[in-house]
């Protein structure tokens, strides 16, 4: 959504001389706010309504002066944007961590089944043997998992019930989301590269594993970038 059009629409209820003052404040806030267009539009709408009420409650006769006093009472838009950025960091980290923690075991199991499926001798192998075999072939994978799992759990504590219990700041949760997402991208690239280099035949399971990992790779990469950007803005 175009924030320029949105701010013009939001201030339409104000007296014409007060509009440019409030519009300028909202544009400054919009410029400093991180996050998606939808999130920014939602925050701008809420703040604009608060500002309009503040203008209505401020005594005075000259609308432009009244608007300036109201804005002063509201506080610096860049500080406000930084405070919202911290909230958005916590929420984004929570979603990233939660998605990785809940999808990880399923995708891991799919890979364990897929990487044995093209070799008849490996079909009857027990799960622990498959895990040992995979970690033996790809020694970086256990190191990555030992980084990704705790980081994803910390990121998930960026919001919700866990955020009330654990002393995890939004900055820490954002960093954990960045680390978990990046780790996931590296792990998926390693798994896909291993499949491409070693698979003699492509079973449906292996095709499914590569497809799902490719999708997760792009989603985890985007989530990691978002966590990093929001954390920097807060």
């Amino acid at each position, binding site marked *: 959504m175009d924030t320029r059009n949105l701010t013009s629409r939001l201030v339409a*209820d104000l007296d014409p001389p007060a509009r440019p003052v409030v519009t300028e404040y909202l544009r400054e806030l919009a410029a400093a706010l991180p996050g998606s267009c939808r999130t920014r539009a*939602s*925050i701008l*709408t*809420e*703040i604009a*309504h*608060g500002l*309009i*009420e*503040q203008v209505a*409650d401020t005594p005075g006769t000259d609308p432009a002066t009244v608007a300036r006093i109201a804005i002063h*009472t*509201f*506080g*610096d*838009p860049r*500080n*406000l944007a930084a*405070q*919202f950025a*911290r*909230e958005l960091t*916590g*929420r984004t980290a*929570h979603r990233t961590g939660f998605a990785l923690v809940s999808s990880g075991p399923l995708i891991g199991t799919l890979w364990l089944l897929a990487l044995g499926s093209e070799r008849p001798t490996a079909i009857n192998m027990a799960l622990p043997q498959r895990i040992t075999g995979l970690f033996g072939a790809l020694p970086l994978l256990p190191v990555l998992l030992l980084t990704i799992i705790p980081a994803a759990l910390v990121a998930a504590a*960026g*919001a*919700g*019930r866990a*955020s*009330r219990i654990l002393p995890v700041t939004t900055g820490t949760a954002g960093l954990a989301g960045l680390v978990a997402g990046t780790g996931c991208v590296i792990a998926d690239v390693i798994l896909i590269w291993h499949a491409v280099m070693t698979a003699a035949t492509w079973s449906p399971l292996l095709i499914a594993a590569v497809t799902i990992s490719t999708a997760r790779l792009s989603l985890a990469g985007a989530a990691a970038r978002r966590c990093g950007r929001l954390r920097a803005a807060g």
Partner: protein
Amino acid sequence: MRAEVLKGHLDGLLLSMLEPGPIHGYAVIELLRARSNGAFDQPTGTVYPALHRLERAGLVRGSWSDGPGRRRRVYELTAAGRTALTDQRVSWWQFAGAVSTVMGGGVAAWTPAT
């Protein structure tokens, strides 16, 4: 009153403003100002991120209300928010009672009704 004095108590104050029922952000600010006789006159804007923080923690629920007039974002306490408010009240009264006793204010420590 300076903003740093409120630090640590703002969440409890906001939760108590929402106790009677759902209200929008600016009404929270007005209520806070009125109930404190203007003593808690924070930069108005800071209340909005604080409400978002409470929402992130699952203590309040925010939703858009399409009633008459402007579309507003309305906040209400969740069950976890009510529990947190009770806990914050108890710890505040214990703290305030202890400080008053030590400083000679003569205010007895509050004990919750059973």
